[in-house]
């Protein structure tokens, strides 16, 4: 029973990370109708930036200063990617987008290795690794959950209650109508990419103290994030968050009690396939009907 509680609680903590990535994926999916395969690598690169800001060999900033600066840099980077890379191909076929995603993926991956080398690095946590509740959860994992919840609350409030959040929702859901009321749709898309990159950066900085910082740290994590997004429904940000947490818990249960840790990653893939077969819209997603 103790093991069950421990696994569930620690699943919640990793689930928080999946929830962040799932949310970032869904935010971009809503705007441009495609999965951003490079979301994880963007997050990984952001985490390296944070590491550079903090490390003594870099700028040696305190954690929370580096945390905020990294979020700002990631925001600008994400917005720049939209403006420079995606805006010019917004009318291009799906395949062009996918190729660009793959290109971004491999660019960030290699660039991180080239700039910071491939040896795993320790990533500091301000929460420490002491047990928070003995045998159940560590202080860092509690911090992960707390930071995630605060961030998700802020994003919800931003989209729900601010005029610019409303304009972003309108631009993503109905670009043509949005333009007709004077919403600067391109600007809103760039903002959306910036926000998604920031959310990813937070996820990266929270998971890195557990996985160590390497250029490949986000490969598995992003798969779980995708699974979370699919489970929750690609059209529902709230669903993506719930899906992320569910996948985190499920991963731990399956890994501990059913398939063993070797096959854990398979769980994410099986989950994606099962959801797409049984309920393609996900838990909270809408069924989207396209006229052809």
């Amino acid at each position: 029973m103790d093991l069950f509680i421990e696994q569930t609680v620690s699943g919640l903590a990793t689930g928080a990370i999946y929830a962040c990535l799932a949310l970032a994926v869904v935010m971009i999916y809503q705007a441009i109708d495609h999965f951003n395969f490079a979301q994880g690598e963007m997050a990984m690169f952001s985490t390296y930036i944070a590491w550079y800001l903090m490390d003594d060999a870099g700028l040696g900033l305190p954690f929370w200063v580096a945390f905020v600066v990294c979020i700002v840099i990631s925001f600008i980077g994400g917005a720049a990617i939209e403006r420079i890379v995606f805006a010019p191909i917004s009318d291009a076929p799906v395949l062009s987008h996918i190729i660009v995603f793959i290109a971004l993926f491999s660019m960030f991956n290699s660039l991180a290795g080239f700039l910071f080398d491939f040896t795993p690095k320790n990533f500091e946590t301000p929460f420490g690794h002491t047990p928070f509740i003995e045998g159940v959860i560590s202080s860092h994992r509690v911090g992960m959950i707390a930071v995630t919840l605060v961030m998700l609350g802020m994003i919800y409030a931003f989209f729900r209650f601010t005029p610019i959040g409303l304009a972003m929702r309108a631009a993503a859901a109905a670009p043509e109508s949005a333009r007709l009321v004077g919403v600067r749709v391109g600007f809103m898309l760039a903002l959306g990419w910036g926000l998604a990159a920031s959310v990813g950066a937070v996820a990266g900085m929270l998971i890195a103290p557990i996985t160590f910082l390497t250029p490949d740290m986000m490969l598995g994590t992003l798969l779980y994030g995708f699974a979370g997004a699919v489970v929750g429904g690609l059209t529902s940000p709230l669903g993506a968050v719930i899906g992320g947490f569910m996948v985190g818990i499920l991963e731990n249960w399956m890994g501990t009690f059913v398939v063993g840790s070797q096959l854990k990653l398979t769980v994410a893939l099986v989950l994606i396939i099962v959801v797409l077969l049984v309920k393609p819209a996900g838990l909270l997603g809408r069924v989207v009907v396209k006229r052809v």
Partner: protein
Amino acid sequence: MALLEIKGLKAYYGQIEALHGFDLSLEEGEITAVLGANGAGKTTTLRAICGMVKSAGSITVEGENVVGMSTEAIVAKHKIAHVPEGCGTFVRVSQEENLRLGAVTRRYREIEKDYERVYHYFPRLKERRNQQAGTLSGGEQQMLAVGRALMLRPKIMLLDEPSFGLAPIITEELFRILGQINRDEGVSMLVVEQNANLALAISKNAYLLETGNVAMTGPADQIMDDEQVRKSYLGY
């Protein structure tokens, strides 16, 4: 000079020329009807004014040529509210948020009393202010679309088939309110309609489009009395 002056307007969808270079003008404070069969270029004309299709020639609004300007800039600068065919409702947000979006280019503090202005014309919308807009009926969505346009405090309203898919009684009510808005607020309107009778009844002038050209133009009552027009477009 007219508020909106179109000269030699051509519009293109890819290689295809949809408008072949005609003139059209809208005087300040007036309603002008644009009539014509399917494919005549009515919708394209409205879309060209808002910078949503590639076009050539000149479209002068308040003395400035807007051809080549972005839609967002035209809307914000010249206060042109386009009510698209099919309403363009933002279905997943509430009805009142739809109105809020209509005023997205304006300062937050100035718009508070404009909700009441919209509800004055469309009392039915007030009852449904928090309802998700996609669940409104067709008639309500059309009223919402006009209400959203009003939130811009527009100088010009472009209405694309406002009667489309509505019951006759609702259509009549809508046109009565459009006339009222025109009189009370001094909003100039360009109304594209298949229902020529209704459009001509509230319009001062009218244009008859035929495959990308103006086939006939004149005061609305003359157009209405023209025998050929009556036969082809009014059905009696």
